[in-house]
């Protein structure tokens, strides 16, 4: 039978011997917590890396293993190709779940990025766009370069209260993307409506809401991320009305729109432990459903497939909460893509990639929407603003490939919050939403 072999060369031609530098190596060892050293170079990571799915046979392959090998020897710029996995990595952790040695590859990548900001031998220059993003966070409090004064503009008509520890059970942390991105604002608005329906007493920080620091974290800028943690911790403690070191009787629930903000609050703000209980909103909705506070009386006939955001799923082990929300809505028919949960393919937007240009042919999102399309679902649901952005782009690109305008009845990308909102408010949706709802429900295949 025919045998196909697709191979591409990775390594530069052998040059002069490279001298290993023990001091540099020690720095890498420290920065990666010793984890890079544990790798025995089997290559599974390179084999599962989504980059291998999009890179054509002529492009240089993205070898995660080779990057780790360089790190094991304290090497950087001398052997790492300019287009190294170091900055391509979306920190999706797909390789981590398969790694036989249990190497947390994402932590290794972030450790190396941290070094790359200060050690030119590791990387002559960090992708220039990224420094600008951090300046935006510094000056504007958000990585999108939007004016701080407009942070609460999305909710002007919603009558949201400022978080009051005496009156509220939850603090809704909107996050920079949901606050400024017009598509993501729909998600935030939908979520607010859903929370209100469930009778949740909550508030927001309004214009005072700071950037959680996920961008700095995912760029590996440990120093600036630390600064943000420091100032944000103080602000949040103050908002909670507790002094450093003391705790309220019962921690306030901190609900985030984005799994990235949730991840950062849950895993990198040790001093908030006991004061706030960070939850991704899907987890919170699942709790509300479990306690009977949130119910969906009207059926929403719709075939849905769910795309697991990497940070929520592999990053924090939460695969079931979003599915429980969908399962609570009568009429919703959840169909899984072949790659789901631990094996879910990344949208391509994590690890700082939202701020870096990715050629159209290299975007994972397109592979993912094809997988979603194969399920026959009318809606590709997800629970992360980055995923929404990448997947919607991918649908547009896919549709425009053959030059025809997008099919109005084609598959739509919706956030879980939006699906929940539709189930509750389909009949009174605002124009854009109503139109979308009509199309979606009418287009259920």
């Amino acid at each position: 039978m025919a045998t196909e072999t697709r191979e591409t060369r990775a390594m530069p031609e052998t040059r002069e011997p490279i001298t290993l530098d023990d001091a540099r190596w020690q720095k890498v060892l420290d920065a990666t917590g010793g984890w890079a050293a544990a790798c025995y170079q089997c290559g599974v990571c390179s084999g599962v890396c989504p980059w291998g799915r999009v890179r054509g046979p002529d492009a240089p392959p993205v070898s995660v293993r080779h990057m780790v090998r360089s790190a094991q020897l304290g090497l950087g710029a001398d052997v790492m190709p300019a287009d190294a996995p170091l900055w391509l990595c979306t920190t999706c952790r797909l390789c981590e779940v398969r790694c036989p040695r249990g190497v947390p590859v994402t932590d290794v990548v972030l450790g190396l990025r941290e070094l790359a900001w200060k050690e030119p031998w590791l990387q002559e220059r960090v992708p220039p766009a990224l420094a600008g993003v951090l300046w935006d966070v510094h000056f504007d409090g958000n990585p999108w370069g939007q004016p701080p004064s407009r942070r609460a503009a999305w909710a002007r008509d919603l009558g949201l209260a400022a978080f009051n520890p005496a009156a509220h059970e939850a603090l809704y942390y909107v996050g920079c993307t949901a606050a400024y991105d017009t598509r993501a604002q729909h998600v935030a608005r939908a979520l607010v409506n859903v929370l209100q329906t469930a009778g949740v007493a909550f508030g927001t920080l309004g214009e005072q809401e700071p950037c959680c620091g996920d961008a700095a974290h995912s760029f590996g800028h440990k120093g600036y991320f630390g600064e943000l943690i420091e100032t944000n911790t103080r602000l949040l403690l103050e908002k909670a009305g507790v002094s450093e070191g003391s705790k309220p009787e019962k921690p306030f629930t901190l609900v985030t729109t984005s799994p990235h903000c949730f991840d950062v609050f849950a895993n990198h703000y040790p001093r908030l432990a006991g004061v706030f209980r960070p939850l991704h909103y899907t987890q919170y909705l699942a709790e509300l459903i479990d306690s009977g506070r949130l119910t969906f009386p009207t059926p929403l006939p719709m075939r849905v497939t769910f795309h697991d955001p990497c940070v929520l799923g592999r990053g924090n082990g939460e695969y079931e909460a979003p599915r429980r929300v969908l399962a609570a809505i009568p009429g919703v028919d959840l169909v899984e893509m072949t790659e789901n949960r631990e094996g879910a393919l990344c949208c391509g937007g994590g690890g700082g990639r939202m701020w870096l240009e990715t050629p159209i042919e290299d975007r994972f999102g397109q592979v993912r929407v094809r997988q979603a399309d194969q399920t026959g679902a009318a809606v590709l649901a997800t629970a992360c603003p980055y995923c929404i952005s990448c997947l919607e782009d991918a649908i547009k690109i896919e549709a425009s490939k053959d030059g025809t305008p997008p099919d109005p009845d084609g598959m739509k990308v919706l956030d879980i919050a939006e699906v929940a909102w539709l189930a509750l408010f389909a009949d009174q949706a605002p124009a854009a939403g109503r139109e979308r709802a009509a199309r979606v429900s009418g287009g259920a295949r």
Partner: protein
Amino acid sequence: MTATLTPSSLPTTTTTAHTTRNGHVKTGDAVLVIGGGVAGVQAALDLAESGARVVLVERGASIGGKMAALDKNFPTLDCSICIEAPKLAEVAEHPQIEVLSNAEVLSLEGEPGAFRVQVRRRGGFVTDACTRCDLCVAACPVLLPSEFNAGMASRKAIHTPFPQAVPAPYVIEPEYCLNDPPNYLPCGRCMTACAPDAIDFSLPRQETLTREIASVVVATGYDLIDPALLGEYGYGKHPDVLTAMEFERLLTSAGPTGGEIVRPSDGTHPHKIAFVLCVGSRDRRFYKYCSRFCCMYSMKHAFQALDHGVPEVLVLYMDVRAYGKGFDAFWERTREQGARFVRSRPAQITPLPAEQGGVRLRYEDTEAGRIVEEDADMVVLATAVQPPAGLADLASKLGIALGQDGFIGTAAVDGPTANGAEKAPAVVATTRPGVYAAGCATGPKDIPDSVSEASAAAAAALTHVRSRSWPSEETPGAPATAEPRIGVFVCDCGSNIAGTVDVPAVTAHARTLPGVVHAEEVMFACAGNTQQAIADTIRQKNITRLVVSACSPKTHEGTFRRTCVKAGLNPYLLEMVNLRNHDSWVHKGDPEGATRKAMDMVEMGVRKAALLEPLARLDQPVKQAALVIGGGIAGMTASANLARQGYETHLVERESALGGQLRHLDRLAPSGRDAREMVVAHQRDVEQAGVVVYLDTEVEVIGGHVGNYHARLSTGEEVHVGAVILATGAEPYKPTEFGYGARLNVITNLELEALMPNPPCDRITFVACVGARTGSLGCSRYCCTSMIHQALRLRREGKTVRVLYKDIRTFGRDAEELYEEAMRAGVQFIRYDADAAPADAIQFAEGMVTVADQLLGETVRFPTDLLVLVVGLSPRPDTIGQQLKVAHSTDGFFLEKHPKLGPAEASSPGVYLAGAAQAPKDARDSASQALAAAGKAGTLLSRDTIGKEPLTAQVQADKCTGCTLCALYCPFNAIDMVGADGTVLPRGVPKKGEPRGVARVVAAACEGCGVCASTCNYDAIVMPSFTDEQIAAQIDAALATAPEEKAIVFACNWCSYAGADQAGIEKIQYPASARVIRTMCSGRLSEDFVARAFKDGAGAVLVTGCHIGDCHYLTANHQTAKRFELWHKKYTRQGIAPERLQLQWISAAEGKEFAAKIREMDEVVRRHAETVSANDVAAADPVPPAAAVAAPAAVEVR
């Protein structure tokens, strides 16, 4: 004839119950062995042979374990069941061993020497009346997947686990049987089919048994991980993704496809097979440890796939762990054969579209840095070894602890502890005194390591056995009348024989034969009442020779020998005629031919029987003392154990202190134990055990044979012992590379031990495989783990440590975990070119090491203060082994008796091997093998005499001319040339003027192959039960009528005869023209036999035997091969058509091959018969054409 064959001198062998030397009263004399795989079987046999009673508990229906399901063994490629089945039969027949199959241990109470165990046994519903005829299976309507065939074939609810299954041939599983709720349907088809009424559904379903025992050996084996847990490999989702065990069954000629490699999805022959290693092993998600033997069996599979004609074979590996003797050489062979080895672990295996078939593998070739998508027709997963299901439960019932890896924990890793409190040999001791573990119960192990540990555990378990006994073996002597009065019993075997062969006609024919005084048809010869009837008839009719025409001597000779003994007849006056396996089962469509053949076969048996002589088991005195040569860890362990068993033990060490290599070490790997402290502990152990130690002493001269060895020491002292253990160790390689010796910053890993843990330098680089994996030397096995242990300790002292390696071979228990720990701690590992010598791949100059990193794809250099050469072990120059006639392997180390099943024994009986003298190994494996050697030696020494089958060669001194050829060709060096004064002459052909001696067979050393007899040009050597006259009589009988239509087939007892039996078991049909004559070895065949066959007019002669390398008698079949070539040339020259004389190697599993060969020979015979009849016509013609007179029958016989 020599004296032993004369009737008056026949001794009777009686061994009575025997109190041990320490005089204890009998309390516990039995040992419980849990698990009937190869380790449990070996432990049971060793124990029983040493006089202990054994209770062998097996969870399944048959003993044999995983080994029984394997096709071939690595690296020798010998047939697995061929070498295991004799051991299984031995267990089944052994009067000292009680086999409880379908049984599980419920509880263990008491203490060492006085345990009480409760065992629950499930009923099997088949009684001992069963004759293994298989008709019940044909009748059973319930189809189930066959576990033995890894689910790739079907079986019935009544089934035999595998053809050689022991003890219960058939089992019924009530959960599937239609007679049983919830399936209840009155079925009973098997009962109806069973002629001897061996099926009884009223037998108890389950019973609880209690046994008093002295100690326990746990040999529970292993399970394999379900690869469906690794979703990314698609097992269970795609039929062409197989486990290695499934592939193993595909390779077996007795397997579901008859040995054809076919793709399960569509039955086509795969063009390309990919083998994936470490599936679930070395993987934190499943098992962190290395499963130890998968590299080698995958290599074997790759080799076999290529051998079966699969053009493309890909092996994806991470480190090739070819750590054993001959393993590296086998890897090399596999690569030369064309297997492609790529260093990688695949990420994903996905099915290709159904119309295309096969799968796509996605992986990174880590040495080329390429991400590859490659298609294959079939993928074979080397699945991880895991603790067997229920092991934790069993452990809690036995009160023993498990290790972190889930296998049984051992007390301490390397040997006795310093305070001497613990006498238990720790390598096999569990956490409960009196309970020992062996084989895969304590982690993955290959067959030789398991067997070695089983013998070690048996030796340890024996120390609790306070009384030993052997069953009495009274052998009747010669019959009252020497006149042959032959009794023939022809068995119907229900319809198995009688359904095809006209048994009454055959019986009638038997009656006409000379010497036959009684001939009788019986329905089931082996049934208990029939055996009694046969014994009565023997007595009544004064029968002096018994011919049983029934089934194979391989399965039933023991049974009918016992019948003889019962009737007061010498058991060697029995001849079996194999009508079932060789005739009725294989000629079902030709009842007339089968009947004619049966008549010939019975006649052959009768004619041979007339010439049989009574024989007595040979008894050789045994000097109950042992000599252990070499006082390292192996010698100390072995001698202390032997002394504790109660034998006078001499330990000779040429240095001034005991300890060997260990004396120069600081710590042991991977346990981290203090080596000096352990040496002291061992020294004390040796002393307390009462070993006679000779320091600064060497063995100068040694000679003798099993049971009686004499050694002269350099001190002038003489020792007389029954057994010798060679524990002479190995020599660390002395490097010449990297300026070693001339540069202070280049040392060996052994020298580093003196500097541990803090040598005065900061940057240390290890170079692995210096003086190993080169030339004839393979892997040195100890070094990777030891080196990593050193590296980790140095790293913990804050050093910069780098390791340059080819493959990391941390295969032992806790070793892979240590490797991971070392990496995690920051030891840098750099892989250098595995095909290059270290000195070619690595440069060390001006304090800088330069090496091409195979995984980075770049050459790197780095400063190094100290270069540590990790040296391999080489064989020591040897004089003692030569004197003891112990053979050497190609690598120069001592050759073990069998690479799989005899790892601690030398080829010379009574000589045992321990430690690195046999092959490089670490302290733990050396201690384990030393215990095994001590156990084996103890078995020999446990009795005052050794008895053996009297099939040994006999010299007729008056005919011997002293030519020395027999001594030269004897594979066991069992023939001495003895001068007129009775002294043994030096070896070699005497020169002119030198005295010529007379050959003398050392019966104790002779194994009975008969190479000597066939070598002797003067007919001076007789092989009892296979004499020239007896074989000639069989040839004449076979060819008495229509000789040109028959082929004479010579078959050896161990392989090809068993192969012919296998053809019967599988009911593979072939023509009835062959007449099989059995000898113990094909080496027995002399030219006279071939000549006689052709003189008698045989249509063809086929010589068969074990495959080269599989010979039961070491190299005896090499003689067959050599001689056959000469015969073939000679007879071809004399006008015999070349095809009429053929040689074919056939293993015990190759029933199909046997049948195919006989079909081929039948064609030969037909062609020849046509020529003969043409000649007959021509001869009738008054003027024959000249050309037609090339008479093949006119062969001149020497």
